[in-house]
C-alpha cells in the first residue's frame, strides 16, 4: 500500500471527473476534452462503467406522481403538436448521415411520410449537405432549418483528428471566400445557430467544407488547417422534405 503519490494522469483525471471530486472549472475543462476527443470520451466512458455500479447500492424510491406530471407539462405533451419535435429529432438526422444512397432515399421517403401525415404542419424550408471525405466516405451530414436559422451537423462515424485539433465548418459561396460557420464535433451531433448573413448565402451553389483547426477554431477567420471534407448544399425539394448535404472527407484515410 505504498504507492508513491503521482500527479494525475489523463486517465486518472477522467476517474476524478466521474467520481465527482473536481472543482467546477476543472469539471468544465474535462467536459471540453470529452467533447473534443473520442479517445477522452472512451476513457471517461470506461470509468463510468467501472464506478457507476456503486449507485446500485442506493435503495430505489418511487418519485411522487407530480414529477411525471411536471415533465409532461414542461415538454408540452398535452398541448397541440408543433414543428419543433421534428427538428429536434436527432436520431432521424443521424439516420440521414448513414450516407448510402438507398438508405438516404428510404430516410427521405420516411420523412415525406412523416411530413405528409403530420396534421396542419406548414412546409418546412430545410436544406442539407453531406460532407464527404476524399475517399468518398461521408464525414458529416449537415441539415439546415432556414426558418429557425440553425443547422445540425452529425458525424457519420467517429472521426479521427490530431490531439489538440478540432474540426471547423465553413460555408463557401460560389466564387467567394470561406465563411466560418462554427466548430463541430468528431463524434456527436452539434447544433449551430446561423447568422442572417449565413442564411442568405445558403443555397445550391454554395458548398460546405470542414478543416482541421487549433482548439477554439481558426485564429485568422479563414481555414488554416487541411480541408478534410466537403460537399455541396442540396436545395429542399418540393414538399419541404430536407435534402441532405454530405461532407465527403478529402484527406487520405488513416489505415485502421
Amino acid at each position, binding site marked *: *500500500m505504498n*504507492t508513491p*503519490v*503521482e500527479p*494525475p494522469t489523463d*486517465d*486518472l483525471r477522467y*476517474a*476524478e471527473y*466521474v*467520481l*465527482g*471530486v*473536481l*472543482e*467546477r472549472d476543472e*469539471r468544465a475543462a474535462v467536459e471540453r476534452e470529452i467533447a473534443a476527443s473520442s479517445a477522452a*470520451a*472512451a476513457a471517461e*466512458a470506461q470509468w*463510468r*462503467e*467501472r*464506478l*457507476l*455500479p*456503486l*449507485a*446500485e*447500492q*442506493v*435503495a*430505489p*424510491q*418511487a*418519485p*411522487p406522481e*407530480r*414529477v*411525471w406530471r*411536471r*415533465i409532461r407539462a*414542461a*415538454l408540452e*405533451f398535452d398541448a397541440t403538436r408543433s414543428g419543433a*419535435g*421534428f427538428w*429536434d*429529432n*436527432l*436520431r*432521424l*438526422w*443521424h439516420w440521414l448521415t448513414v450516407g448510402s444512397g438507398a438508405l438516404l432515399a428510404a430516410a427521405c421517403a420516411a420523412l415525406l411520410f412523416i411530413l405528409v401525415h403530420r396534421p396542419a404542419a406548414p412546409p418546412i424550408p430545410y436544406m442539407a449537405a453531406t460532407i464527404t471525405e476524399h475517399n468518398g466516405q461521408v464525414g458529416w451530414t449537415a441539415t439546415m432549418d432556414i426558418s429557425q436559422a440553425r443547422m445540425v451537423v452529425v458525424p457519420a462515424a467517429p472521426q479521427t483528428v490530431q490531439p489538440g485539433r478540432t474540426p471547423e465548418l465553413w460555408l463557401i459561396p460560389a466564387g467567394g471566400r470561406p465563411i466560418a460557420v462554427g466548430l463541430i464535433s468528431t*463524434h*456527436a*451531433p452539434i447544433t449551430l445557430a446561423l447568422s442572417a448573413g449565413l442564411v442568405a448565402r445558403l443555397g445550391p451553389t454554395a458548398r460546405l467544407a470542414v478543416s482541421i483547426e487549433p482548439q477554439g477554431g481558426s485564429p485568422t477567420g479563414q481555414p488554416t488547417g487541411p480541408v478534410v471534407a466537403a460537399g455541396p448544399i442540396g436545395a429542399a425539394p418540393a414538399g419541404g422534405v430536407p435534402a441532405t448535404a454530405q461532407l465527403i472527407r478529402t484527406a487520405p484515410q488513416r489505415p485502421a
Partner: protein
Amino acid sequence: MNDTPTDTETLEQLLARTALQDRAAFERLYQRTSSRLFGLCVRMMRDRGEAEEVLQEAFITVWHRAGTYNPTLASANTWLTTLVRNRIIDRLRQRRESTSTETLDLEHLPDEAQGPAAHAEASENAVRLERCLDQLDAKYSRSVREAFFTGATYKELAMRTQVPLATMKSWIRRALMQLRTCLET
C-alpha cells in the same frame, strides 16, 4: 406500473424510440428507471424537494438528448445515471458555494455501504466493484464512497475529514488506481 410485454424491451430500445420522439416509449423508460434514479437523487441531494426537481430536469434532458446516446460507449443505464449524477453534482456545487461544510470523522462514520446483497438486483459489475472496494484500505474506500454519494470536491472532503488536501488527493488517487487494477483482473 404496467407489466405488459413491454418489459422485454431493453432500456437501449426505449431510449432509441425516445430519440424518435415516441412518447409512450419515453413514459415506459421513466416507469422503468425513475425509482432507481430518484433514490440516487434523494441520497445525494438529501432534500426530497430538490431531488424531485433534479429528476424532472434530468428527464426533460433525456427527451431532448436521447438522440445523442451512443450505445457503443455506454449502456443506457450508465448513460441515464451519468446524466442524473452530473445534474446533481452541478446543483451541489452551486449550493455549496454559499454554505459551509460540516466536519466528518471518517473513523467513526457509519459505513453506509450495504454490500452487494443490499438489494437483490445488484448487477455483476456492482458485486465486483464492491469486492474491489473491500480490498482497499478502509480510509480509501470510505473516502471514495463519501465522494461518490455526496458529490463533494477534494477540498470539501479534506475539510470534512480534517486531513490536508494533498492527503485526501493521494488517498483517492491511490484508491482509483487500485480499483482500476482490481477490476481489470
